[in-house]
């Protein structure tokens, strides 16, 4: 049998008809019908009810960038205050609130949500599907993220923002030392945000194992998908710890529990364990998908496939698993037994192995390729450089004796910014330059792009490298000012100047975005001549993504036939594929080898995710204000909205007929 025959798999008969194969020419009447099926209502109704992963993805991106700007402005205030000795630009309490909100905003409201934005937008396109597995859950995840973000800023204008740092150590964050609403806002906000992250993660995991186009076997999944999958699985284990920690803290503060209260046999170290069991995996959660972005996008600019696909996939997963066994490196100075210290130190060093594998894979890809020095490439190459520096300072702090010296100094602030900006912000900005044409149908300006890169890169290094030195000179982190005789004046001034240069770079980038949305040059479907599936559809993609479900035959479907030494017998089919258009439908495939198994009925747009998100968030407002009737009312409304969401619908095949199983297949959304 010739392998080039159109693969025709048997789809489980009791569930569904066997879909036809065919083509849908652009501009045909069938295409118009498909458009009609998937379109979102215009105006505010569509705005509140849409479940399109692309819209949700863009919302995530825009919201996360707004938070980046807010967090960035807070940072600039901090840097003004620290520019010279004995400054009085901010009061100590203002400084505390600003550095806390800066950390919280960057870590929780920017770093992961921005990656979720890319993943939401890109996953179905990369995987050859029409949406995420649970589109409504996806909408819920966004709304709760948005509301949780607003919630955490509720008390900011009142001068009562969270003020105990982003890891919020007890006893300072406990009821005795922190009597205002500051910490309650943070605690409840984190529990709320945890709901969003959890449902979002479930959605990614199910999508990967259910929604890949036929032929996209497990060895052909893009690395961005591996990264987000790994991060999502990790979230499912890590989030419960932090939600529990913040809930217990809230109980301590509000109903007189004593989980962390030493005077009543509570355990402050319990807080640190619960927080960092979550916290360290989280730092990988906010970098692995970004590393995935680079692994997928860098090859486009090197004109060759990624070197060591398997090794990078494994490195991604191994880093994450090892990342669950290193949290005590944040607690080296707390007096744990030496065995624990040495074991966690050792595990922290082992992590450098998979990280180094990934770094060498990127370097080899650049080395063996023919790099094209476009703006995205600059950001990705800059990322590799910053990753190496941040990785070095990381391994240094994994050594227990050295960490005792460096702990709580500016060396740590330098390290964390090198890894967070280096491995998250630089790839993210590069990724915007890269996918902007896909999102909007227009290119961003190369000229402004190069300016933004060099300003950001130079400003960043000028601003943050000296922080290492400030740390070695003994400057503690989280101090609101310092006397001149300490010898920290020059490094701090340089740091402040560098920070502002960096901020100007970000500004140039944002200006570029705003100008290009309106006036950028038109982009075709594949302006970079990239290899992956999202570039097979028009820019911006139609609501249904793929007119027919494609069949995939390699890791780089759009470069097939160009790569030397590649087996030639099979070809990806993009034009011809399964025709699915009796309502919103897409194909469900098997988890490992991606064989078609079921036609999934995808849900219509709905207000319920918005309403559930709103009521659940208001419930948390009720808890914050101690307004129990309001809380109960919101709980009841949440349940009502949920019931309406979950009500079985015949269209989704969730209501069985007398003649046995559903006549219309199985729903994509839960019962």
């Amino acid at each position: 049998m010739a392998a080039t025959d159109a693969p025709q798999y048997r789809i489980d008969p009791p569930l569904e008809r066997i879909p036809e194969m065919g083509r849908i020419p652009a501009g045909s009447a069938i295409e118009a019908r498909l458009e009609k099926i998937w379109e979102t209502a215009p105006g505010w109704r569509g705005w509140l009810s849409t479940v399109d992963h692309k819209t949700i993805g863009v919302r995530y991106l825009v919201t996360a960038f707004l938070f980046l700007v807010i967090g960035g402005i807070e940072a600039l205030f901090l840097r003004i205050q620290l520019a010279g000795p004995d400054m009085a630009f901010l009061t100590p309490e203002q400084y505390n609130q600003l550095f806390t909100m800066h950390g919280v905003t960057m870590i929780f409201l920017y770093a992961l949500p921005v990656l979720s934005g890319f993943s939401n937008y890109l996953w179905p396109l990369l995987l050859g599907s029409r949406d995420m597995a649970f589109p409504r859950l996806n909408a819920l995840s966004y709304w709760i993220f948005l509301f949780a973000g607003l919630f955490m800023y509720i008390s900011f204008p009142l001068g009562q923002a969270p003020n105990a740092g982003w890891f919020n150590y007890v006893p300072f964050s406990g009821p005795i030392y922190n009597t205002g609403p500051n910490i309650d806002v943070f605690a409840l906000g984190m529990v709320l945000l945890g709901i969003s992250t959890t449902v979002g993660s479930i959605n990614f995991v199910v999508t990967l194992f259910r929604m890949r186009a036929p032929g996209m076997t497990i060895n052909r999944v893009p690395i961005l998908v591996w990264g987000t999958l790994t991060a999502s699985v990790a979230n499912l284990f890590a989030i419960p710890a932090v939600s529990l920690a913040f809930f217990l803290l809230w109980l301590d503060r509000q109903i007189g529990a004593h989980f962390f209260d030493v005077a009543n046999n509570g355990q402050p170290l319990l807080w640190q364990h619960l927080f960092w069991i979550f916290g360290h995996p989280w730092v990988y959660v906010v970098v692995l998908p970004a590393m995935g972005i680079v692994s997928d996008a860098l090859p486009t600019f090197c004109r060759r496939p990624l070197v060591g696909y398997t090794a990078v996939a494994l490195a991604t997963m191994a880093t994450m698993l090892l990342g669950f066994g290193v949290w005590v490196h944040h607690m080296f100075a707390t007096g744990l037994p030496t065995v624990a210290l040495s074991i966690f130190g050792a595990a922290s060093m082992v992590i450098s192995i998979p990280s180094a594998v990934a770094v060498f894979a990127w370097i080899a890809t650049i080395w063996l390729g023919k790099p094209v020095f476009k703006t995205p490439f600059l950001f990705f190459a800059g990322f590799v450089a910053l990753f190496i520096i941040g990785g070095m300072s990381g391994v240094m702090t994994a050594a227990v004796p050295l960490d005792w010296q460096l702990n709580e100094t500016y060396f740590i602030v330098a390290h964390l910014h090198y890894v967070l900006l280096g491995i998250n912000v630089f790839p993210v900005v590069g990724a915007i330059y890269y996918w902007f044409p896909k999102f909007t149908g227009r290119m961003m300006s190369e000229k402004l792009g190069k300016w933004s890169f060099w300003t950001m890169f130079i400003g960043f290094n000028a601003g943050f490298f000296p922080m290492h030195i400030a740390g070695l000179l003994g400057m503690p982190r989280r101090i609101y000012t310092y006397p001149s005789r300490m010898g920290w004046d020059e490094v701090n001034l340089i740091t402040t100047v560098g920070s502002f240069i960096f901020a100007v770079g970000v500004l140039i980038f944002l200006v570029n975005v705003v100008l290009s949305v309106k006036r950028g040059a038109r982009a075709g479907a594949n302006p970079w001549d990239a290899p992956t599936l999202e570039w097979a559809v028009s820019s911006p993609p139609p609501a249904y993504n793929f007119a027919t479900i494609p069949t995939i035959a390699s890791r780089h479907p759009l470069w097939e036939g160009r790569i030397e030494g590649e087996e030639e017998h099979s070809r990806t089919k993009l034009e011809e594929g399964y025709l699915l258009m009796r309502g919103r439908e897409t194909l469900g495939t098997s988890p490992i080898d991606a064989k078609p198994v079921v036609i999934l009925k995808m849900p219509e747009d709905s207000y319920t995710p918005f309403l559930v998100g709103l009521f659940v968030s208001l419930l948390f407002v009720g808890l914050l204000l101690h307004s129990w009737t309001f809380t109960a009312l919101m709980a009841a409304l949440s349940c009502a909205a949920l019931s309406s969401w979950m009500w079985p619908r015949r269209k989704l095949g969730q209501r069985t007929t007398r003649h046995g199983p559903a006549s219309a297949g199985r729903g994509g959304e839960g019962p």
Partner: protein
Amino acid sequence: MDARQTVSTEHHFLHSPQRIRTLLALFGAPGAWVMQMALTPPIAAYACYPHQFPLPVPLWPGLTAILATIGFVCLAGALFSGYIALASWRSLARYSKDASNKQLPFQKDEGQARFLTMLGMMSSFVFIVAILFNTFAVLSIRSCSAWI
């Protein structure tokens, strides 16, 4: 030709005993490492800090021996999984060399078996190293705190 036939041969790999070997190769060494991480620090913590106050010497004199034993058992498990991974890789290589096997499952699965086996070898390697590091970490220091 008959499409069903294609389906059944292509499913072959994942339903064969090879599947168990692949799973073991993939998850054996990480599992052993997780075991070691889950046992060693809590046992050490209890031995050194059983009640309200830290002890200068462990509760049980053989603590280091206990922890080292855990390390070696986990190492053995990880090495076994590495061996399985290597063996699968070799048999796969033999298969693909043999041109007459072109239509057999390993060829038909579009590289999945190769990929999973390679992952297994790499994950075994990383986690064998991780267990070795941990075991050295246990052996190279005094068990209880330097804090008192």
